[in-house]
């Protein structure tokens, strides 16, 4: 059992999909409960993993490896280190909670939950895969259900959103595939094994390529591959200017899918950069991080915050706030300091829980009022006090209020970034003020003020909704008070990661 814990975690939901498909399609409750049952074991295993992971070792743990397609040196190779275990925890948790957030889906229930479970497997796989080929398969596996989940169960403009999402990510996938093949054919012997590719990271050339525009930029093979991978990942993050799929996808997607999108999918971008770009292409990383991670990250923070301020759709507002918050991750990891990179990964985790809460919270109000116009509410605090309390927790955590988890990661990121890019840090930190501005304004418009007569009788948040929100809220508080709960996992792995890049920094 313990030898294959990652495999079980990854494929349990897939088995669940099989079971769900065999269930009669009109037994909605049965389907829901079976889905919940099949997302619970990964969560329990993730907790077990958390307990048994040895945080003092920087390397990979819980490795499983066997030859899969030996002709092309493709292996089934999974394992976790500090970077991925945090993401695995997040994925397992959010997937479990999102099943409950999906309870209200009543259109083609069977298909929805089957696709959801497939998505779960895809996401988990991305975070545990250590073979490039496997990684790509999971990456694409996740794209497909996402497309259908948005395109079928989404809002009024779902087709547009789904296709936009699909095209954007497909573009990213194509570039990534090219980069993967480029790395494969420059490895010796040909291999998709990430650990081997990392061990060979000095081999990929940095001499400028002899054709335009690379000769002008002084870019070598490494840089080109880096850029291809980066664009693939940047679309997922989403970094400016590849971010416009996000608001549309979020607004149209059903609540649980928004949570998954923001909570897990966005992390794949930054995870990929840290898992692949950093150790495999350290020279290019050292050269390009400033322009494409730090500057873009700071710009993301401010730009996302400003765009969020202008939104009137609650969900769109939260979506743009994600753009802003992911900027911190980029800025933090570009600093190559212990605080910065740990803060970045912690921010990924925190953003997952906090934004998850925010989307769940928007979902609650949307289910009741059937619209999301920020200006259309008012005085909800008097109507739904418990809901207001939980929402306030989420909103303040997102603002980076000290004592809650968002603060820790933002401070670490900015503290780390300051040591390399003080000016960008000042810009990034000003995002904190803007964030406070638009969220407070939102609180004021939605929750405060005189009660809107139309919504005087809205029912209070119910037990199921609380069940999805409260665990996240507890995590948000615990990590604010005791961030070592996650930082301990990350520290040694990420410091090791830093050490691979630092020698190349000029």
């Amino acid at each position, binding site marked *: 059992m313990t030898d294959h814990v990652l495999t079980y975690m990854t494929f349990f939901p897939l088995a669940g999909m099989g079971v769900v498909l065999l269930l009669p399609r009109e037994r909605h409750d049965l389907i829901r409960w079976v889905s919940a049952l099949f997302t619970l074991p990964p969560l329990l295993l993730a907790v077990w993993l958390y307990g048994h992971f040895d945080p003092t070792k920087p390397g990979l743990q819980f490795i499983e490896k066997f*030859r*899969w*397609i*030996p*002709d092309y040196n493709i292996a089934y190779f999974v394992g976790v280190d500090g970077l991925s275990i945090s993401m695995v925890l997040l994925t397992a948790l959010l997937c479990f909670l999102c099943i409950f957030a999906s309870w209200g889906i009543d259109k083609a229930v069977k298909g929805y939950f089957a696709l959801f479970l497939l998505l779960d497997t895809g996401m988990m796989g991305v975070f545990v895969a250590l073979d490039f080929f496997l990684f790509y398969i999971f990456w694409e596996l996740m794209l497909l259900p996402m497309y259908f989940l948005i395109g079928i169960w989404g809002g009024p403009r779902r087709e547009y959103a789904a296709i936009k999402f699909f095209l954007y990510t497909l573009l990213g996938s194509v570039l990534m595939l090219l980069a993967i093949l480029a790395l494969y054919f420059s490895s010796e012997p040909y291999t998709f094994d990430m650990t081997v590719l990392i061990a060979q990271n000095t081999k990929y050339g940095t001499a400028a390529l002899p054709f335009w525009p690379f000769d002008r930029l002084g870019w070598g093979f490494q840089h080109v591959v880096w850029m291809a991978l980066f664009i693939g990942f940047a679309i997922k993050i989403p970094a400016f200017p590849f971010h416009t799929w996000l608001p549309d996808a979020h607004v149209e997607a059903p609540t649980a899918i928004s949570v998954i999108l923001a909570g897990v999918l966005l992390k794949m971008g930054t995870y990929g950069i840290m898992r692949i770009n950093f150790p495999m292409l350290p020279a290019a990383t050292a050269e390009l991080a400033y322009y494409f991670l730090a500057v873009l990250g700071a710009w993301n923070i401010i730009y996302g915050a400003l765009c969020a301020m202008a939104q009137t759709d609650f969900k769109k507002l939260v979506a743009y706030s994600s753009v802003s918050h992911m900027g911190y991750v980029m800025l933090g990891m570009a600093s190559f300091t212990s605080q910065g990179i740990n803060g970045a990964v912690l921010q990924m985790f925190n953003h997952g829980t906090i934004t998850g809460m925010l989307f769940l919270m928007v979902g609650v109000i949307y289910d009741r009022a059937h619209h999301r116009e920020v200006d259309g509410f008012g005085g909800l605090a008097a109507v739904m006090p418990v809901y207001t309390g939980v929402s306030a927790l989420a909103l303040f955590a997102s603002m980076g209020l000290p004592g809650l988890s968002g603060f820790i990661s933002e401070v670490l990121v900015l503290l780390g970034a300051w040591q390399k890019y003080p000016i960008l840090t000042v810009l990034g930190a000003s995002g904190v003020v803007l964030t406070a501005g638009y969220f407070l304004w939102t609180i004021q418009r939605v929750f405060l003020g005189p009660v809107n007569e139309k919504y005087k009788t809205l029912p209070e948040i119910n037990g199921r909704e609380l069940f999805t929100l409260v665990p996240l809220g507890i995590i948000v508080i615990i990590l604010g008070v005791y961030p070592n709960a996650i930082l301990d996992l990350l520290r040694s792995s990420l410091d090791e990661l830093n050490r691979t890049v630092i020698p190349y920094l000029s």
Partner: protein
Amino acid sequence: MQLSPVIFYLIAALTVGSAAMVAFSRNIVYSAFSLLGTFGGVAGIYVFLGADFVAGVQVLIYVGGILVLILFAVMLTHRIADVQITNRSVGRIPALVVIGIFIFLLIQSIRETPWAKAKEIVYAPTTTIIGEWFLERYLLPFELASVVLLAALIGAVVLARKETRE
């Protein structure tokens, strides 16, 4: 004169001859039964080529499965009496011409191409190694094959079942 070429030519003649029966016979039942000769002949050729396992599979699946299936289909869809009418064929002459040219060209190219030669030609049993390879190198296609077969099975059941009106 060695025995094996003789046997080879016999088998080849059986194969080709019964294939010709399939192609030219006016009676579909004869065509179907001629297939038995072709399939058996091909199995013999496999034996000649040292592919014992494939030969076995050929006999089991083609002769034992597909052929029986075809015969069933023939029996289910025709009254034996009016076979000639239903097994009509059209445009034989142009087809024969074109295919004749085609076969001629094929044989030409078979003769002219310098085929790669194996280092040594072995006549060892292949079942073991095929079995191993199925579970190693060809694991994915092997698994896929089972899925395909399952799908075909279900599909055939769905298609052939009588539509019941409610």
